[in-house]
């Protein structure tokens, strides 16, 4: 299936399954990468076509992308957050992640009345002691995620929910340390139910939330039944 995914012939359920595996299985991801390495050189044979002039449109869309300086701001805030306790951590994460969190900010603007559904705790773990703890608030209106131990990397952790259909959806970037409060877009809240997987992958911050993870997850955990 790795070869067929790399070739691009999979569709429907099989494609979704491959995308799920890509995130869940480093071995599968490595096989896909190997096949891409074999097949991609064929791309040299594509014939050129007179291109449209869409450069100005591309340049305009770059403005919507996160610029590198935001990353250093994020790191600075994380440093402060680490020192000043949980409240500051949450506050800092909310303030800092504001501009880089989810595009559908409009969806999250109107908080619904809290329903008496208790919070759920999930643990996400990976190789070499990677560990995160997530607390999903009532009706998944918020999700606190605390990075306990993450591997060293210049990349930024991104949180994903993988529901029953196996297709990962981004919940946005999270801080490398301390607690990040994520406000899931309304459309994704129903997916944050027991049995769904939470995953964290390391990504470049530009363009987040991404439509699909670029690498295998460093940590995975199932949302437990209440």
């Amino acid at each position, binding site marked *: 299936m790795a070869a067929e995914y790399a070739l*691009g*012939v999979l569709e429907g359920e099989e494609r979704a399954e491959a995308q799920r595996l890509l995130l869940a299985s480093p071995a599968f991801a490595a096989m896909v990468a190997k096949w891409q390495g074999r097949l991609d*050189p064929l791309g040299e044979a*594509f*014939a050129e076509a007179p291109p449209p002039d869409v450069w100005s449109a591309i340049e305009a869309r770059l403005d919507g992308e996160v610029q590198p300086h935001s990353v250093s701001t994020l790191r600075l805030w994380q440093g402060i957050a680490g020192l000043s306790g949980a409240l500051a951590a949450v506050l800092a994460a909310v303030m800092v992640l504001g501009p880089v969190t989810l595009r559908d900010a409009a969806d999250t603007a109107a908080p619904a009345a809290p329903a008496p559904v208790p919070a759920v705790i999930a643990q996400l773990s990976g190789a070499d002691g990677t560990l995160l703890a997530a607390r999903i608030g009532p009706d998944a209106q918020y999700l606190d995620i605390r990075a306990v131990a993450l591997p060293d990397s210049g990349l930024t952790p991104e949180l994903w929910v993988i529901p029953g259909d196996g297709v990962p959806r981004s919940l946005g970037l999270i801080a490398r340390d301390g607690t990040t409060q994520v406000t899931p877009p309304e459309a994704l809240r129903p997916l944050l139910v027991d049995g769904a997987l939470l995953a964290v992958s390391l990504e470049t911050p530009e363009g987040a939330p991404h439509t699909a993870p670029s690498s295998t997850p460093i940590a995975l955990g199932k949302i437990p039944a209440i």
Partner: protein
Amino acid sequence: MPTAAHADARRAELSGLIARVARGDRKALGLVYDRTSAKLFGVCLRITRDREAAEDVLQQVYLKVWNRAGRFDPEHASPITWLCAIARNASIDWMRKHGGPMPSDAAEDEPGAAGLGAAMEEMAAGEERAQIFDCLDKLPPNHQQAIRLAFFDGLSHSELASTMRSPLGTTKSWIRRGLLQLRGCLQGD
């Protein structure tokens, strides 16, 4: 050979530009666009078979390049191969999301053979063909055609079956056996 040296220089220049893009240099992305948009638009148009869709995907491709430039490794891939792969994958994503059942018919209307011919010519013209082209040439005709249609036209399993007018199980096995033979051939050098 001067042409090979020229190709090497172009490759090095493009790799350098991508490294600048990784550092947030917009001007460098503009230069990458100037040098590669004809090629990448060729990829998008070939697979989406729809000008408007191809233009939209092309924009997404350069935004992906902007975001992923830091992950390009010139030691492991040629820059144009890396860029074409982004364009091909983005186009296939678009097709699997929006293509629906329509493309199998459209693929028959589309002069697929002519497109294939154009790609073949360009391959033959390339002074420095990757080994995979020779391996592909050695496959049985059905396996070879199935893999070409999948790679260059972005056809899915079901679209392949309808385009090649064969049962789904048959075209799937052509793809699978063809891929295994390709792997064997690539390892056998």
